[in-house]
C-alpha cells in the first residue's frame, strides 16, 4: 500500500489519533490500514453510533471517521451528539451513500467533511489535512511517497 508523508499534530509532533466508526469490521480494518499509511494512530473503534459517543469521551481523538448506515444509532445522529458535547470535534463521514441530501444533513449536524466509499487513500489523505488545518503538520520523512 502506498505510503504518505506522515501527518502529525502541530502542538506536540505526535501522530494524529483516529476514532474509526463502522459496523463492518472489514471496513474498519481497511480504514485503520489506510490511516497507518498517513502515520496516524488508532485511538479507538466503534461498531455503532452509541458506542462511538462513549469511545469519543474515553479517547478524545483528533479525528473521527464515521460511517452513516449503522445499526442502533446512525452516524449522522451520533455525529450531532458528539459535536453538541464537543464543539471542537472533527468528524469526517465515510459512507457509500453519498447523495447530496445525506452530505448536507451530515454537514449541517456538525460533520466537517464527507468521503465516499470505496475510500481512495489519496482522497482521504487530502481531506484529513484539510480538516486538521493548522493543527497538523506534514513531516518530510525519508521514504514518504506522496
Amino acid at each position, binding site marked *: 500500500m502506498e505510503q504518505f508523508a506522515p501527518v502529525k499534530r502541530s502542538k506536540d509532533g505526535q501522530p494524529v489519533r483516529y476514532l474509526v466508526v463502522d459496523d463492518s469490521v472489514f*471496513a474498519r480494518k481497511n480504514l485503520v490500514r489506510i490511516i497507518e499509511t498517513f502515520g496516524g494512530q488508532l485511538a479507538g473503534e466503534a461498531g455503532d453510533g452509541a458506542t462511538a459517543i462513549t469511545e469519543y469521551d474515553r479517547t478524545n481523538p483528533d479525528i473521527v471517521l464515521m460511517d452513516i448506515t449503522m445499526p442502533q444509532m446512525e452516524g449522522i445522529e451520533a455525529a450531532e451528539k458528539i459535536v453538541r458535547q464537543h464543539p471542537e470535534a472533527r468528524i469526517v463521514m465515510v459512507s457509500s451513500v453519498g447523495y447530496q441530501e445525506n452530505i448536507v444533513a451530515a454537514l449541517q449536524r456538525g460533520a466537517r467533511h464527507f468521503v465516499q466509499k470505496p475510500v481512495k487513500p489519496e482522497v482521504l489523505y487530502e481531506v484529513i489535512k484539510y480538516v486538521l488545518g493548522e493543527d497538523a503538520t506534514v513531516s518530510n520523512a525519508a521514504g514518504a511517497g506522496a
Partner: protein
Amino acid sequence: MKMELIQPFINAADAVLAEGLQCSTTVSSLSMEEEAYRRKGVAALIWVSGDIEGRVILDLDTQTAVRVASKFAGTELPESDTLVRETVCELANQVTGNAITALNDQGFHFRVHPPILHTEDGSKSSEDTEALVICFETASGNVFMNIALRYNRRRQGERAMAAGQ
C-alpha cells in the same frame, strides 16, 4: 422491472469492483429469475425502502471472497468465516450505497438498510419482484448480483399527483 432502476446497480458494482480489485470487470451473464434465489456461496442481502423498494443480494464463493478481501486490504489475508462474511457484506453495502446515490440524484428517495447475511434460499419472487441476476467476471473470480426492485406504488401515486398539480 425497469432497466432505469437496474443500470445504476450495474454501474456501481463495476466501479466498486474495479476500484477495489484494481482491474476491469465484464458482465458475463444476465438473466431473469422468478424462482427462489439459490445461493452460489456466501450472500449478503440489503433491503431498500422508499420510492423504490426491494432487495439486492451480492453473492461470492468463499475463495473469491478471500481474494477480494486481500485485494481490498492490499495484503494476503488468511481464509476465515468472519473475513468472508464481512467482505461480502461490505461489498454489498458499497455497491448498493453507490447505486442509491445515483438514483437519489435522479429524484428517487429511499433508505438503505444495513446488510444481513442471506442464509436461506428465500421465498419465491412475486410477479413484480422478479429478480435480475448479473454475473461479473473479475480477475479474483465471479461476483453475482441479484436485484429485485419495484416502484413503491403509493409513493409513485403521490409523485404523479404532485407532478400534476
